[in-house]
């Protein structure tokens, strides 16, 4: 069922990144960012719920699958780190989501209506990440250095975004080109350089999509699923 594979992959991306952003609640550097990060997390959670419901029962899928059954990109499961690290992750992912959903929205697939709604949200997320990349990159010496470190640290997880996914009828090579052009433009305006390392490693190319994740992910799931799993069959 290619449509399920696609819904699960994109749904897991949104679910996992939403969870990571939810961890910021009460810890953001300024009150406006408490609102903005929660807002983005909520948009993503809304997307996840629609997508997972296309593939099955949203709560069963979120709470009762183990790590090896999740299909999200390794990028979105990376821990928040500092604010620059979170923004780098968001810039890479929102740019991808905006381009991907833009194409899906104009297609004929089952995902088109969801993508049409979500593209408005992810465009806002991309703008938010872009604005902060500029402020941190072209702010103070410290923020410049932190933004550089965030972009560098996450670069090796970006290649996975362009691995084809069953049921997503998109030209992934063209997607890679548009993504690279868009991200490069923002990074350069932010007075930074595009990281020069590889975009994947021995275990990273297409790994998350195949259920191979990084170590912090299991701990994230343990926290997310604990209560639900402690009360089998209960409704909330």
């Amino acid at each position: 069922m290619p449509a399920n594979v696609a819904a699960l992959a994109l749904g897991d991306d949104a679910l996992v990144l939403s969870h990571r952003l939810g961890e910021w609640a009460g810890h953001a550097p300024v009150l406006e960012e408490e609102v903005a990060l929660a807002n983005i997390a909520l948009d993503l959670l809304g997307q996840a719920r629609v997508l997972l419901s296309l593939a099955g029962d949203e709560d069963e899928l979120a709470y009762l699958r183990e790590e090896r059954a999740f299909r999200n990109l390794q990028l979105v499961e990376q821990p928040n780190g500092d604010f620059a690290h979170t923004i780098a992750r968001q810039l890479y992912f929102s740019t991808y989501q905006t381009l991907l959903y833009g194409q899906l929205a104009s297609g004929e697939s089952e995902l088109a209506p969801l993508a049409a709604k979500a593209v408005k949200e992810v465009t806002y997320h991309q703008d938010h990440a872009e604005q902060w990349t500029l402020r941190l990159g072209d702010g103070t010496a410290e923020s410049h250095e932190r933004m550089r470190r965030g972009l560098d640290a996450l670069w090796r997880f970006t290649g996975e975004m362009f691995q084809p996914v069953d049921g997503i009828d998109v030209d992934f090579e063209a997607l890679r080109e548009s993504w690279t052009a868009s991200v490069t433009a923002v990074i350069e305006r932010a007075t930074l350089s595009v990281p020069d390392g590889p975009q994947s490693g021995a275990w990273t190319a297409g790994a998350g999509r195949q259920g191979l994740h990084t170590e912090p992910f299991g701990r994230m799931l343990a926290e997310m699923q604990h209560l639900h799993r402690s009360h089998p069959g209960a409704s909330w």
Partner: protein
Amino acid sequence: MATAAAHTAAGTEPGEAAHPAASSARTAEQQAAFDEAVAADERIEPRDWMPDAYRATLVRQIAQHAHSEIIGMQPEANWITRAPSLRRKAILMAKVQDEAGHGLYLYSAAETLGTSREELLDKLHSGRQKYSSIFNYPTLTWADVGAIGWLVDGAAITNQVPLCRCSYGPYARAMVRVCKEESFHQRQGYESLLALSRGTKAQHEMAQDAVNRWWWPSLMMFGPPDDESSHSEQSMTWKIKRHSNDELRQRFVDICVPQAESLGLTLPDPDLVWNEARGHYDFGPIDWTEFWAVLKGNGPCNDQRITQRRRAHEEGVWVREAAAAYAAKHGKATA
């Protein structure tokens, strides 16, 4: 905009106090006009003359209210990553986001009185201004999130609805927006507890335990008894406050008892009984020793709450500095 003479008496120019006698006559005139406007239930606006003590009381109260929204995010955010269904997780995230928004409205309202958010946050972080003592209690189970919605937001609404008619315009208007969202949160909390109460035995027990732990602290949210409340009388004269602490507390108890019955949960008070003669529920004594201990910083989570708030602020310094530096370079206003 109000129409009474208070508003025409506004705007004493800085150089105007050259003649002390004339100046004190002018102050008396302004005071009289202010009193008349308040008595006529008119709104006082930021540019209007107001007594220094009225201004100071409002700054203290609005700041404390704003701080409570911000600190109040923590006990609930504690459960965002563990919420047991995606629907509940979305509701909780939206609620915590609303609280940050309420904090922002309220800091803006306080700023109309001539202070700044930065200054107020500094007072919060250094312990010179307080926040509601309720947020010094821990959220130990998922049911606590529901109990906070039902009881804590319920008590907040009982307190805040009369503030929508408070004499100071910006505060009253902020309260109208806040109350709309709070009553939505309160219903969600009730509904979440209801799901637990009607769920499995373990869920029902979790709900009852949460109500047992949150009931008394919620009653304390109305503040000390009327005979020990130092600011009450003046605040009522100024129409910042419309009802006494004990009146509001009684109103809250009267609302909660039937709600607890329909939830299928009990309230942890053996003395709780309907008093036909008074037309109200009688309830047992509140442990004021605990109240004062929590207020003085010795509650279960006081240190944890303020430490987390300070840490978020300190760890965010470089981000705020970056935004300011970028704005200076590119000629745009800072956030």
